[in-house]
């Protein structure tokens, strides 16, 4: 079970289970379970998923278009974006589109090859939950959010530095 960081702290008990990512595990789940299903499942089975007693989230693969999720209607209880390898940067765009274009406000969780050294940029793109890869030191990873104190460009978290710069500069500098 990966360690979860949520809103900058370690969460020890997390009920969500990702379905359909690891091919060797069964894609069956109990009615009461909190599960994160693939976009295709969400699109085809949404009425029955909505009648479950457990909560339902959706995960997007790197090639999935967030516009398709938005087009389905109301957003699920949680959205996860899967990083098959930390060097696959498509999920950063997926996250920004969800936040900035499609107005998703709920939990946005990075899953897969999620490492300490990418947390800062992931957070800037709108992720607020991080299911760290098993070998990661979660306590040490928390410090990643403080790697930088300023950013030049506009992202989900804040506008561009040039819009803030004058206010940040002490008078006379």
């Amino acid at each position: 079970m990966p360690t979860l960081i949520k809103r900058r702290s370690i969460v020890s008990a997390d009920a969500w289970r990702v379905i359909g990512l690891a091919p060797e595990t069964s894609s069956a789940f109990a009615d009461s379970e909190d599960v994160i299903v693939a976009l295709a499942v969400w699109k085809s089975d949404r009425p029955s998923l909505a009648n479950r007693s457990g909560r339902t989230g959706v995960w997007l693969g790197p090639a999935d278009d967030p516009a398709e999720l938005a087009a389905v209607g109301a957003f699920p209880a949680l959205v996860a974006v899967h990083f098959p390898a930390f060097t696959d940067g498509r999920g950063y765009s997926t996250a920004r589109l969800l936040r900035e274009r499609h107005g998703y406000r709920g939990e946005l969780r990075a899953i897969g090859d999620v490492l300490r050294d990418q947390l800062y940029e992931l957070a800037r793109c709108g992720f607020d939950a991080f299911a760290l890869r098993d070998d990661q030191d979660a306590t040490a990873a928390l410090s990643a959010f403080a790697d930088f104190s300023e950013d030049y460009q506009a992202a989900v978290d804040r506008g561009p530095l040039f819009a803030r710069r004058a206010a940040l500069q002490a008078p006379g500098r």
Partner: protein
Amino acid sequence: MYIYDEIDQRIVDERVAQFRDQTRRFLSGSLSEDEFRALRLRNGLYIQKHAPMLRVAIPYGLLSSAQLRKLAHIARRYDRGYGHFSTRQNIQYNWPRLEDVPEILAELATVQMHAIQTSGNCVRNITTDHFAGVAPDEIVDPFVWAEVMRQWSTFHPEFGFLPRKFKIAINGSVEDRAAVLVHDIGIHAVRNEAGETGFRVIVGGGLGRTPIIGHVIRDFLPWPHLLTYLDAILRVYNRYGRRDNKYKARIKILVKDLTPAGFTRQVEEEWAHLRDGPGTLVQEEIDRVESRFTRAPYALLHDIDAGYELLLKGEPAFARWASRNVHAHKVPGYAAVSLSLKKTGVPPGDATAEQMDAVANLADHYSFGELRVTHEQNLVFADVAKRDLHDLWLELKVLGLATPNIGLLTNIIACPGGDFCSLANAVSIPVAQAIQSRFDNLDYLYDIGELDLNISGCMNSCGHHHVGHIGILGVDKNGEEWYQISIGGSQGSQASLGKVIGPSFARDEVPGVIGRLIETYLHKRDSENERFVDVVRRVGIEPFKAHVYAYAD
């Protein structure tokens, strides 16, 4: 120079701390080789044949004398006493120790330098015209816009893991001296009929194994939209660029697959959402960036300096140097000067720590304490008073930096090649040296006239061989080094890609082949004004081919 404010400095300092921690975790075994690889690459650190190679950013090629002294100090203290200026206007050190790199970065930060994004699949150092700010045909000062884009690209959170590396160039003049047609994105400043500043946006050019001239996807982008438009292009590329094959991962392949029209449509659709968003530039920011650049306090001079004119008439060697290495300047009485790093017998682009220190002193004395690195791997003093040119020439001669060969055959662009680079198929520098030796006679060299000769040790094309009037490419044939020769390439507004003349040659044959290409040219040209590349364009490659291969077995 753009002078950092407290925030710019803090960001670079924080990067040093971050990389120090990453290196510590790697050396202690808690960061795997693969994971550290992606991180160190974004700090310009490669593991090469002999040792790590560290590529230090020289944003848009602009350096202060204090920065150059620091580069000399690093060469001396952490390397073997020299550095290599690259075709991306950066400097590379070939022998640092991994353990020392955090300390080197900390030293660089004290002079507002870094190695951020000099490698890796992210936006690389943004390059521009080495005559920025002084060229008579300038529309806008590209340094200001290059700095605006440097800040935008620095740790851009969305585009840190693109399908492949990403190179942007900006040109601010009428004439293109930034090779905007052969970059992932080329930005060419233009004015519209109303006199407003904007940019022509060119996408999908590049060299490498699939050389291609870029496509104009927007004729006029009003300047406030520069960054949001870049975001739109990069987002389309990040989402849809190929990631399954690194040789097909550059944006040029995506543009080709979607067709230029299809790609443009996608960018415009994306931009429709981003347009006028928070990233839209405002005049105050452009003014702020501009005001943080140092400006040369020019003296009020006559454009014609009588003493200089007299010396030109009296000293043929000086006149020869001035004809090749001195360039027009927009301020009366001033000139820009090229310092050639292409002396015969010295690897192209290499400079010793002693040369760097001496050049720093000369820059202080003659050019307001600043200099530029060119993509042709030379240095430029942009602001020299004409009355000082003769004194400067005398001092440069002593340093071996006055070779009067700018624009001539021996001003060879060459990548580090197989002597240093683990990607190369073949060596580059010894080939360059053999050619330089063959054409060491200055009279012959001047008779040949303007000629760009570029050498790459493999098809990654770091030596820009595709756009050389003569291009030489190192190829591997059953484990042996061979060289393929092309002719007719060129850079600039008329950019074209060279055509291969035929089967490749062994290394020791190359100078002879170049000799026969030159013989053909001299025989075919209609006057001294017709350059090598003009003749190739006029008569085609056949006569060259015939003469070269008539001698082959």
